[in-house]
């Protein structure tokens, strides 16, 4: 059996490639399954607001399904939010990201309008702010709150 494998070197190579693909697919499926178990929150971004549904979720692994409804490009940042005014960056048009760089559970880079992305985050109980920090977007109203229950 072993010698046949060695003899059919090319078939062996092809077979192992197929095997590798299968393993990769399997692992993909596994992660989707694991995220499929987590609650999914629909996040819709558009000029210039964010809709979160549902706005309440239990603590733990949460999957944010983020759709950009456009027409502009938008990013998404998730930060814990205890209320009050958030500090602005020196240009006066965006929030100062350096302050919550280490505390944010997750973020997504700017995406084209019409795109849908997933963001998996582990959320502790508390209030969170979801917003787009592109130039003037937060100031124009692109932010929403998510409440995470115990």
């Amino acid at each position, binding site marked *: 059996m072993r010698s046949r494998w060695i003899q059919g070197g090319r078939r062996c190579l092809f077979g192992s490639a197929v095997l590798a693909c299968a393993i990769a697919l399997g692992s993909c499926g596994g992660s989707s399954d694991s995220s499929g178990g987590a609650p999914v929150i629909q996040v819709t971004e558009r000029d*210039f607001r964010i809709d979160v549904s549902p706005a309440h979720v239990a603590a733990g692994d949460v999957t944010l399904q983020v759709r950009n409804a456009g*027409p*502009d490009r938008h990013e998404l940042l998730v930060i814990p939010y205890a209320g009050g005014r958030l500090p602005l960056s020196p240009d006066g048009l965006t929030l100062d990201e350096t302050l919550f760089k280490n505390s944010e559970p997750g973020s997504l880079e700017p995406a084209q309008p019409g795109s849908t992305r997933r963001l998996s985050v582990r959320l502790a109980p508390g209030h969170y702010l979801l917003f787009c920090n592109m*130039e003037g977007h937060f*100031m124009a109203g692109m932010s929403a709150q998510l409440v995470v229950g115990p």
Partner: protein
Amino acid sequence: VISRLRRARPFDRAGRGIVVAIFISFGLASAVSVTLSIVAIDRSRSRATALEVVARQRTLAERYVGEVLAAHDGGTADPTQTAALLNESVRVLLDGGVAPAAPGNDDSTRIAAVSGTSIRRQLVEQQRLIADLTAAGGAVLAGRSVAPSALTGGERLTAGSPITQLRVLAGLTSGVAEDTASAIAEESNRSSDSLITLELAIGVVGLAVTLALASVLVITTRSRMAHYRTLVTSSSDLVFVLGDGGCTYASRSLCKLAGRPQSELLGQGITELVHHHDREKLAEILEGDPPQSMLLRVRNSVGELRYLEAIFTDLRSDRHVRGLVVSSRDVTERVRLEEELLMQNQRDAFGSQIVEALEMADDEQSAYDVVGRAMIEIAPESPMELLLSDSSRAHLEPVATNAAAGAPGCPVQSPFSCIAVRRGQPVEFESSEALNACPKLRGRASGPCSATCVPVSFMGRGLGVLHATGPQGAQAGPERLAQLTVLATQAGARIGTVRAFEKTQLQAATDGLTGLVNRRTFEREVRELISSGRRFALAVGDLDHFKAVNDTYGHEAGDRALRMFAQVAQDALRDGDVIARWGGEEFVFAMPGLNRRQAENVLDRIRVCLAEAHTGALPRFTVSFGVTDSEVGATLEELMSVADAAVYQSKRAGRDRVTIGEALPAPRAASNGNGNGVPALQRAAEEEDPPASGFEIR
């Protein structure tokens, strides 16, 4: 395509359509590609202009804020123009038209309406934000906040001063413009990519179609070439092409004839096949204008010479061939037949000449002369002789030689020592030194030679041989041999005929039994003697009791007795004397120069000799003579009657004696003579033998 190929006729002018199709497909692909490039470049140029205008919106939004703030601070800036510029620009981007020139460096440019759903949505958003920006600008100048209800772009400016609001709106406008610009740039990239892909695809498809058509063309051409090749190479005609460097093509049939592969015939190889006499001719033809056809001799695989009838087609000026095309057929059989016919004709002409010449020869010597002259005609350089046997057929003697070249001098003695005579057919010797050569050829003074020996015969009997020699190792050849055979045959026929004729003449003049001249010859001789006036004696002799010999011992013994007497009488006579058998047992003698007395002595001697000649094999017999001479009578008849009477007297006197007739008998006896019979003898016989015995004279 394949089924069309199968139907294609070998001499059709197909292939042209395929070439045209190749060009069309190539041109089509190129045209589509170029058109696409032109359209793409045009669109890309328009997009670049749009991109410029969109990018300018950011600067204009910043400038508008600056101008509003300057005006708010009491400056002289007029933001309305910038606002109009912003509005007009975004409108032109959406609907197409002439983009206004910005103060500073830009010129007004015509652009098409920007396409793409998402880009247009962004432009619409930009248009709304610009409206909101200008509204906010107006509110700042008026010293109040902009009303949230006046905002059209979906923004909620909840907090901040009017100036902050203005700045936020300018930021939003600027952001949208940037997004739009990057989207346009991306779109441009994408369309460039897709154009490249499309052109690549067109190129590949065009190439594939061209290649497919080209391969069809190649297949068509190949199958047609194969067809032509098969037609040419399987033809039985022997075809070759002579170019500058010798042979450039030789057909399969020619290779088969030569028994060599084509590679050996190419170049100068073919000249080895051609007979060396024809090589020069062929070279001359290559130099100048070729004849329409010629006879070419080539050697085949076993070295045999074959005649080819070659037809020349001059294609030296044809750029596809560049040579002389020689198409030939093997006509050896025809040529051989023609040569044979020609030779046959010549032989026939020679033969009839010989026959005519020999017909005019009425004796052997003239026939020999004819043969000698014919030898010179056949081969003046070749020693030649005709060896013939004499009448005894025991010895061969040269009777005619080639006067121009002499006689070869064959030492053969008798006809049956000659191999050609024994075999009865011509014999050829290539060399006198060969093992199987005739030994009579060796050791001749002229040295080693070749020889041809043709037997000469008449009615199947060998008469001799016609013998010719030539240089050592050279054969006479079929033509020479044929001529010699004709000469030998005709000479044999003529010489045989002449000899037979002479023999017949001799037989007519002699007596068959004794070999003595007959009565008619005797009469002629005697008449000649009488007319010459010369004296002569005439005698008649009659054997005694011959009837008894015949009856007792048989006719055979009688014949022997007659022959014996003839022999004895001849031996006793002189050369000039004539003795003849008159008939039966009666003999007559004419002896010129003798008178009757002298003749009596001669006759007595004969009687004595006869008596002495008896050996015992025969019964003893005697002879009775009567003799007279030319003085007694004037004519043969008179003399005969005198001699007859004398014989009668001898018989009466007792036989075995000679009686001289001195005078003419009485007229009674003369009138009774019939000129043929011998009356006196008849009477004597009647007396001697009774008539019942059946004895008859003659």
